């Protein structure tokens, strides 16, 4: 049922436009600010229109080492991408295997295993960050991609989601596959994975964003600028005790930091939405 009342239409459109403005204005401000030079940004008012720099600021942060960071934004973007991809793919890979074992294999303490995994859902990274750091340090993982990715690679959420999906797969499908001569690996590869593509796509988006937005862990584990991620560097650009904050560079970097997640969402959103709402298997 849809209500058709002109007043309601106007009100809801007004509300939507207001919300849209609220969301877009900061991005717009960031974009205009990124086209000014540093001096004009310190005149006291935030510029609402483009400055005279064009895309020079973007070009500058991408190609030249940014002051106080010791590296250019291209490198930072690469680091963040590697980390986010590694975490997203790793989480999905491990979660698929873990859920597969829990749902389709009978082994002793199966329930216990599931509950142990499930309980870690309630433990945020921050709680276990000291022991994790100690282990990473002992394993010589500081300042490496492995160190950025591995400690964040196991995911109770993803395991749980895959388990729930696998539980809806009719048991006859497994039996038919067994009769057809498909072993456990074949069943996973030929039947289960193709059936869970939408779930995988949805989880990939979520996990990529999760990995991209990591702040605390990369901050702890990286000291060299070669392995710094873009989120950490953004904060570092802002925290200058004695100098003026280079707002034009901050804004350009922030906008660039938004691009990969946006790209992932745009590319995957078809599957993502399908995976969230589509019950059909």
């Amino acid at each position: 049922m849809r209500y058709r009342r002109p007043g309601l239409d106007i009100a809801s459109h007004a509300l939507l436009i207001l919300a849209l403005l609220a969301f877009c204005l900061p991005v717009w401000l960031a974009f205009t600010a990124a086209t000014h030079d540093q001096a004009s940004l310190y005149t006291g008012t935030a510029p609402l229109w483009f400055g005279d720099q064009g895309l020079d600021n973007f070009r500058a942060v991408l190609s030249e080492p940014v002051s106080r960071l010791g590296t250019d934004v291209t490198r930072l973007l690469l680091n963040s991408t590697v980390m986010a991809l590694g975490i997203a793919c790793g989480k999905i890979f491990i979660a698929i295997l873990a859920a597969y074992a829990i749902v389709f294999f009978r082994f002793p303490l199966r329930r216990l295993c599931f509950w142990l995994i499930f309980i870690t859902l309630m433990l945020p990274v921050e709680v276990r960050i000291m022991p994790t750091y100690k282990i990473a340090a002992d394993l010589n993982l500081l300042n490496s991609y492995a160190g950025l990715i591995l400690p964040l690679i196991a995911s109770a959420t993803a395991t749980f989601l895959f388990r729930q999906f696998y539980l809806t797969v009719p048991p006859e499908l497994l039996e038919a596959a067994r009769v057809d001569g498909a072993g456990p690996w074949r069943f996973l590869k030929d039947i289960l994975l193709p059936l869970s593509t939408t779930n995988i796509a949805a989880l990939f988006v979520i996990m990529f964003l999760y990995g991209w937005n990591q702040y605390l862990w990369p901050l702890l584990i990286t000291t060299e600028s070669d392995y710094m991620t873009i989120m950490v560097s953004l904060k570092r650009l802002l925290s200058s005790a004695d100098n003026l904050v280079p707002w034009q560079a901050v804004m350009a970097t922030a906008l660039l930091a938004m691009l990969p997640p946006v790209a992932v969402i745009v590319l995957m959103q078809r599957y993502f939405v399908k995976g969230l709402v589509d019950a059909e298997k």
Partner: protein
Amino acid sequence: MATLTLDALRKTYPNGFTALHGIDLAIDDGELIVVVGPSGCGKSTLLRMLAGLESISDGELAIDGQRVNDLEPAERDIAMVFQNYALYPHMSVADNMGYALKNRGVPKDERRRKVEETARLIGLEELLDRRPRQLSGGQRQRVAMGRAIVREPKVFLFDEPLSNLDAKLRVQMRIEIRRLQKRLGVTAVYVTHDQVEAMTLADRLVVMNGGHIEQVGTPMHLYERPASRFVAGFIGSPAMNFLDARCTGDTLTLPCGTRIAAPSSHDANDHAVCLGIRPEHLSRVAEADDTTLTTRVELVEPLGADTLAHVRLDGQDDPLVARLDGVQPVAEGDRLYLRPDASRLHLFDLENGRRLDDKDAHSCPSSPSSRLA
């Protein structure tokens, strides 16, 4: 092309529940065995044990004389058709059918040739590129059959394959399954709870109850000589009527006073027995005498070819069903005189339900050779 030998097959679950108490059965090459029974009688468990999807607790299962107890389903060279078809939803019809061949390492060209050949056999050529969800129920059933046929297995196993279809399609597919099975000459075991399906398909029928085999035999043998009251009530539609009676010499006396000649060669002298009369062996007569049952009509079901009259025995409250020829001018509340066909009565022991009037029925033919003899 295979024989199947079941020797004292037992299934006991870890929680101590015994689903099957020793099943003995010899299935001949090319034979279609139908296993029927009420739900929970163990028939599906039995089939799943044959398939290798369920472990065998005790006893021996042999295909072509070779013990297969511990073989994986794929190694037993069987094919199974599931009740809900269990087609792989993301694969085309052709891929569904060819999946087992692919797993076996059959080259692509040969695979396609075999799939196409089978598709032609069962009328699926047009649908090979479709996905299961684009097919109707009957077509899915056909694909499931095709998937079984294409592998040329030693044994077909059917697990209530028609119960998800509508009545018309069910009749059609039933005939088709029979035709295909005869044409391919493959040994088949077919599980169903539908006794019409069982009667029409079976070379031999296995009636199961509570984890035991009640009787094995040809459908007509089971119909004419049910070995127990359970089989008698299960085979035949509408179900057989049962009445209490007393047997003296060669006369059966019903509580209502009706006297009927008892079947010969029974051992129930001066005993209370359970008398079984099939609805089709009651005929309507105009006048009451001491060989007829006086009844009052409760409900009439005209089926066209014949009429089912649900009646109650006068004086007693036992409900009876009579199958009368053609369209009968009877209405609810009418008085109806029914004469049982004395040559087609069944006598059962009141306590254990065993057949009394025929010793042969106890030693049911368990192998085809004894059936043919």
